[in-house]
């Protein structure tokens, strides 16, 4: 770049600065700065007529908007009023204005966004996950066939295995008949066969093959299509069919009175969920054997609490009713005998007419009454009798905990009722209480679990977990309750295993990772408590359940059981299931279990790999396509977990796998290829080569597949094949590369994020084999493509390749095209992207000195971009400088760097902190490479400019300035005078409060450098004064800084002043001094031996102070001194200090006692084990336990650290059986 250009850039920036300085209220212009070239006066050297000579002058449109602001945050507008005002103008912040403009109550929020954020779990769930509600109410209690006779009472009731299996058969039959009827209807009624939309089916195909293979898939993808639903289209069947809503009711069970909400459609849209007891909640009123939730028995009508509150507080009188209701044609009925109106106000609330009932009877449209939080607040209690003040109480909770409010007479209740109330109260505390309440309640529930009994507990907990309005926090707490209770109940849970599973299994496919982990933990504890036999007999009926959802979750649960109880225990069962002849669903689920096990356990499957593979080997050639597919996926999962071992276990299935791959199409093929891809890396070279060539023709064929999933799998397999040893570069070049680039390096691939990533990774993997040059040749032209995402994809690939393999392979011609392309991509970005920046940096650094010819061009690009209006562009340009500074130095472009330095210096007036931070970073990297003395601008100009910036509160700015200042203080302190350094010292004090540790550390180090440069006196005085401030953080950091100063300037310059400061009768100061001494002695180590006797009197005083913290800090000083003087002849002083420290071993406060023990330990190092142990023997067998405890702690510490050294010093206990005659041998 020519000097003229350079000057232009510089001048433009100077003018920009001037303009911003002239602007009122500019945040950055600091009148105290020492720059001279920012005056607003007309320049004498430049043309004044900017209309004619606009290129040379200020942009004539400066101050105008060059574009119309779209989103209302046009900050470039000049202050409208230039006038002077006497009173301050207060205005709303940008955030507030923006908020008014676009949302948070003004407009509707993005519905999807709201859903995502909602705390209610049910609102976030996908349709698939919602199917958990279809499992209906909690299943009946099961009989416990494995129970010991002691549990006879439980044994007599509950479903037996036989009954459950029979029930499943019935369900299946029901399903089948229903499907037949449906088919008939579809055919018979219309007469004409309806053509189904083929597109729909196509779409079904595009499911995520990987779906099943990772636990997270189901959860991470929003719209999940299940491919492994039964081919008989179970999903279609379950399409909402209002009359069909109760199909899952147990019609085969004891006749029960029809549920009140019989006729209601089961599927409700979201907005009418408010009634606490929606169809899916375990009402128990549908004739199930499940005991209803106790409180619901009282309130059969699903009440909707709090929604129709008209704030009446008195019942309607008869007169009022007469006025309201028609008088003729109706008659007033007598209340039935035995009816007593509810008098209790709390119950009254519950008895408000359920809106469902009203809608049913009245029909027609009803206005939704908005639920006002205030109204609710008035009605909903936060104080429940016998529970105390809760954090919150939701309307839905009323349904479960309403009973607590009726204020019944506890004296008149049976034990069972009392127990139930007790549990209810505890649960409410756990669920809605404050943290301390939760803690105690949780402990009580755990401790009394066995007294309460499994039934009573789970009948209350589980319905709560099925509640639709459940939130994350509540679920977490309830799950925790179950977890704790499981431990206590042990085998008593057996009859309830299935109920628990129904509730917990959905957690296994939750979006939230922690929910999944929690689910696993519970199931594994459940498995351990109930035992394998119970688990198998409970879950067996679900394995070939008609509902795919149930099978899927059961498979996952089984995998958890396997990991809890060990794979070998489960293997025989799995083998049987996988070979089931009766139903393909069972085989499918069995294989799925095998697939889930490695996902859960990782390489822990290795010992059982053979067994697991044998289980599923036959299923690779199953007649059901779905089973084959899932088997291939299971093989892939096993191979992935076993990597790099275990190929011998797969030997048997290699043949079916490879031949199978030829026969498959579509999804099945994708799964097979996936399995192949995971197995090839396990093979040794020869085999890998052979098998790769076998599979490659299929891969090449599938390169052109339009299916996204297939593309992903193919890419993955290619990269796996490419990275195995057996596959040679020549082979890849010859057979793969051309096709690969033709099918995958197309613009379309860059648009989808997942494809993008996959293509980049695969290309990099191929590049590892075939070399950088080969790949770059093919992609380098794309750097100048017109599509930005495509350019980005290219840059990322180039970056990864060059970072991994270097640029030695890049020819001269290629290098030219590469730099040209990268520069083009850099300049043409419409959104500044870190990827491009990284790519640029990596390329330049890899090329090193080969960059020299291109540097002027690069620098001029940077300079122009530094002058850009957009902040991000400037920031990126500055970031690029810090990345290429090293290379510029290598190329000997010192002059260019000087120019850059000057431009950056000009830019220190930057407004945006992010940009300013980057600019400082760039300056720092230039200073680092050119050195302090060669720096342009000279340090004496630069540093004063930095002082005000130190005051900036932005973290990035702080970090970069302090780094730069520290570097200058370290390398060239002489270039600035002492006064300036002192000024910086004062600014640094504020930095000691920074949140980021790096900043505090840098500030501390800088103190050291400055003290070294200008002598410790002034710095020390500043620091000592700072010990008086209030904030602890600041004092601690000051103490550290004093320590550092002492270390850099020799302790004798600091210690006298420090000890003098101890005389200030102020606790904070004295503690600060002690703390500083503690750091000081820690840093100076062995030098301490010269100062021990000087500080001992001070320590004496501190160690006998009344204040605990005082003694604690003194103890830590003692520790550091003692460790410093080990073996240096200060034993007398140490012994003296030990005498003062030792009485403190009876302290109980954790910090104090820890410091004291450490001090004793350190002194033991200094004076020898024997001496200190003489103090310890005395208390080991003291009659008072309170004395023994700390003494044993000391003994244990000594024993761990120097048991051997203790041997000669054990007390002489000849008459107590401790005779060690060997010790008295004298030769």
């Amino acid at each position: 770049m020519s000097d003229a250009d350079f000057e232009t850039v510089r001048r433009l920036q100077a003018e920009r600065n001037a303009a911003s300085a002239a602007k009122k209220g500019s945040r950055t212009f600091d009148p105290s700065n020492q720059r001279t070239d920012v005056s607003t006066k007309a320049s004498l050297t430049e043309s004044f007529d900017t209309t004619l000579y606009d290129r040379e002058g200020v942009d004539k449109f400066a101050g105008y908007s060059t574009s119309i602001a779209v989103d209302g945050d046009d900050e470039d507008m000049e202050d409208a009023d230039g006038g002077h005002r006497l009173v301050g103008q207060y205005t709303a912040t940008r955030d507030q204005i923006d908020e008014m403009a676009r949302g948070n109550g003004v407009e509707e929020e993005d519905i999807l966004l709201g859903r995502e954020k909602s705390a209610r779990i049910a609102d976030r769930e996908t349709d698939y996950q919602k199917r958990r509600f279809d499992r209906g109410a909690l299943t009946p209690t099961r009989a416990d066939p494995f129970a010991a006779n002691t549990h006879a009472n439980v044994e007599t009731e509950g479903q037996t295995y036989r009954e459950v299996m029979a029930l499943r058969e019935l369900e299946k039959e029901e399903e089948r008949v229903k499907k037949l009827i449906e088919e008939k209807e579809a055919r018979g009624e219309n007469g004409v066969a309806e053509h189904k939309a083929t597109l729909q089916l196509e779409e079904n195909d595009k499911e995520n093959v990987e779906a099943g293979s990772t636990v997270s898939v189901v959860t991470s993808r929003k719209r999940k299509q299940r491919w492994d639903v039964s081919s008989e289209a179970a999903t279609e069947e379950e399409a909402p069919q209002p009359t069909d809503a109760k199909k899952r009711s147990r019609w085969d069970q004891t006749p029960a009175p029809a549920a009140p909400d019989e006729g209601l459609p089961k599927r409700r849209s979201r907005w009418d969920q408010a009634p606490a007891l929606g169809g899916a909640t375990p009402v128990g009123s549908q004739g199930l054997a499940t005991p209803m939730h106790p409180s619901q028995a009282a309130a059969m009508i699903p009440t909707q609490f709090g929604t129709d509150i008209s704030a009446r507080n008195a019942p309607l009188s008869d007169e009022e009713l007469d006025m309201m209701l028609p008088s003729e044609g109706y008659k007033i009925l007598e209340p039935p005998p035995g009816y007593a109106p509810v008098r209790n106000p709390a119950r009254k609330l519950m008895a408000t007419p359920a809106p469902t009932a009203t809608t049913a009877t009245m029909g027609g449209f009803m206005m939704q009454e908005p639920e006002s939080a205030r109204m609710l607040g008035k009605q909903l209690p936060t104080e429940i009798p016998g529970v105390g003040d809760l954090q919150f109480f939701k309307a839905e909770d009323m349904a479960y905990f309403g009973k607590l409010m009726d204020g019944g007479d506890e004296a008149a209740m049976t034990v069972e009722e009392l127990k139930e109330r007790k549990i209810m109260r505890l649960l409410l505390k756990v669920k809605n209480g404050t943290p301390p309440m939760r803690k105690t309640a949780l402990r009580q529930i755990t401790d009394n679990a066995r007294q309460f009994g499994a039934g009573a507990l789970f009948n209350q907990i589980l319905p709560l977990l099925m509640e639709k309005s459940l939130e994350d926090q509540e679920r977490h707490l309830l799950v925790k309750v179950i977890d704790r209770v499981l431990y206590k109940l042990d085998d008593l849970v057996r009859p309830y295993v299935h109920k628990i599973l129904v509730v917990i299994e959905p957690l296994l496919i939750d979006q939230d990772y922690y929910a999944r982990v929690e689910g696993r933990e519970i199931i594994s504890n459940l498995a351990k408590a109930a035992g394998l036999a119970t688990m198998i007999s409970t879950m067996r009926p679900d394995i070939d359940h008609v509902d795919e959802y149930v099978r899927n979750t059961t498979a996952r649960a089984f995998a958890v059981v396997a990991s809890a109880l060990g794979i070998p225990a489960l293997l025989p069962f799995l083998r049987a299931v996988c070979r089931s002849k009766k139903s393909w669903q069972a085989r499918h689920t069995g294989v799925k279990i095998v697939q889930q096990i490695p996902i859960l356990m990782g390489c822990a499957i290795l010992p059982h790999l053979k067994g697991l593979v044998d289980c599923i080997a036959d299923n690779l050639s199953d007649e059901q396509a779905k089973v084959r597919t899932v088997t291939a996926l299971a093989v892939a999962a096993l191979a992935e977990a076993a990597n790099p071992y275990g190929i011998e276990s797969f030997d048997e299935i290699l043949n079916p796998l490879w031949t199978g791959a030829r026969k498959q199409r579509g999804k099945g093929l994708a799964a097979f290829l996936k399995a192949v891809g995971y197995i090839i890396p396990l093979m040794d070279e020869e085999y890998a080569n052979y098998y790769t060539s076998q599979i490659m023709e299929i891969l090449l064929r599938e390169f052109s597949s339009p299916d996204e999933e297939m593309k992903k799998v193919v890419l993955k397999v290619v990269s796996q094949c490419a990275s195995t040893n057996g596959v040679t570069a020549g082979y890849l070049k010859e057979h793969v590369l051309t096709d690969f680039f033709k099918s995958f390096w197309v613009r379309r691939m860059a648009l989808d994020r997942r494809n993008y990533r996959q293509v980049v990774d695969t290309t990099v993997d191929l590049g590892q084999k075939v070399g950088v040059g080969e790949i770059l040749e093919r992609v380098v032209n794309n750097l100048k493509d017109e599509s930005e995402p495509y350019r980005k994809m290219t840059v990322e690939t180039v970056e990864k390749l060059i970072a991994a393999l270097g640029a030695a392979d890049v020819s001269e011609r290629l290098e030219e095209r590469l730099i040209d392309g990268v520069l083009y991509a850099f300049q043409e970005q419409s959104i500044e992207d870190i990827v491009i920046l990284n790519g640029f940096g990596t390329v330049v650094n890899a090329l090193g000195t080969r960059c020299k010819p291109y540097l002027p061009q690069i620098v001029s690009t940077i300079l122009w971009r530094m002058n850009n209006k957009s902040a991000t562009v400037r920031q990126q340009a500055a970031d690029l400088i810090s990345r290429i500074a090293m290379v510029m130095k290598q190329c000997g472009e010192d002059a260019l760097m000087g120019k850059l330095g000057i431009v950056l210096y000009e830019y220190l007036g930057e407004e945006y902190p992010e940009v300013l931070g980057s600019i400082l970073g760039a300056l720092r990297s230039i200073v680092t490479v050119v050195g302090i003395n060669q720096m342009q601008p000279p340090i004496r100009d630069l540093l004063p400019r930095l002082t005000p910036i130190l005051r900036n509160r932005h973290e990035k700015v702080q970090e970069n300035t302090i780094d730069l200042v520290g570097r200058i203080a370290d390398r060239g302190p002489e270039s600035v005078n002492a006064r300036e350094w002192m000024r910086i010292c004062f600014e640094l004090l504020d930095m000691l409060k920074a949140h980021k540790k790096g900043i505090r550390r840098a500030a501390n180090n800088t103190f050291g450098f400055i003290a070294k440069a200008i002598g410790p006196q002034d710095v020390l005085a500043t620091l000592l004064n700072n010990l008086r401030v209030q904030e602890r953080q600041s004092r601690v950091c000051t103490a550290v800084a004093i320590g550092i100063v002492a270390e850099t300037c020799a302790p004798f310059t600091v210690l006298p002043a420090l000890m003098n400061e101890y005389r200030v009768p102020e606790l904070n100061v004295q503690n600060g001094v002690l703390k500083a001494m503690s750091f000081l002695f820690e840093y100076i180590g062995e030098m301490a031996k010269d100062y021990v006797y000087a500080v001992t009197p001070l320590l004496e005083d501190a160690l006998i102070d009344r204040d605990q913290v005082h003694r604690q800090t003194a103890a830590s000083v003692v520790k550091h001194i003692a460790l410093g003087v080990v073996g240096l002849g200060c034993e007398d002083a140490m012994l003296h200090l030990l005498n003062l420290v030792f009485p403190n071993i009876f302290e109980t406060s954790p910090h104090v006692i820890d410091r004291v023990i450490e001090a004793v330990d350190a002194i033991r190092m200094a004076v020898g084990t024997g001496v200190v142990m003489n103090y310890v023997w005395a208390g080991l067998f003291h009659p008072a336990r309170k004395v023994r405890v700390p003494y044993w702690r000391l003994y244990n510490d000594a024993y761990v650290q120097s048991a051997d050294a203790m041997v000669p010093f054990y007390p002489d206990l000849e008459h107590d059986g401790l005779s060690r005659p060997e010790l008295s041998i004298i030769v």
Partner: protein
Amino acid sequence: MADKLRTLQNLEALQARYVGTGHADTTKYEWTSNIIRDSYASYIGHPPLLSYMAVGMGDSKEKVRAMMIEKMVRGAGNPPETQE
């Protein structure tokens, strides 16, 4: 409470790793037998000390070593009768 639990767990972990460590309820018998075992282990572990003792006892080093290992069993005599 939580603290107590933690110290207890820490102690258990410590004891699992270092058998010779004790606690407030360690009996004198346990302590002395640990001392004796530690002492013998220490003598055996320092070959010069072992040779010195062997010379002093007028026996071969190996014999002394074997004798010392032997003595580690019930080094502090039989355990005291526990009165239940």
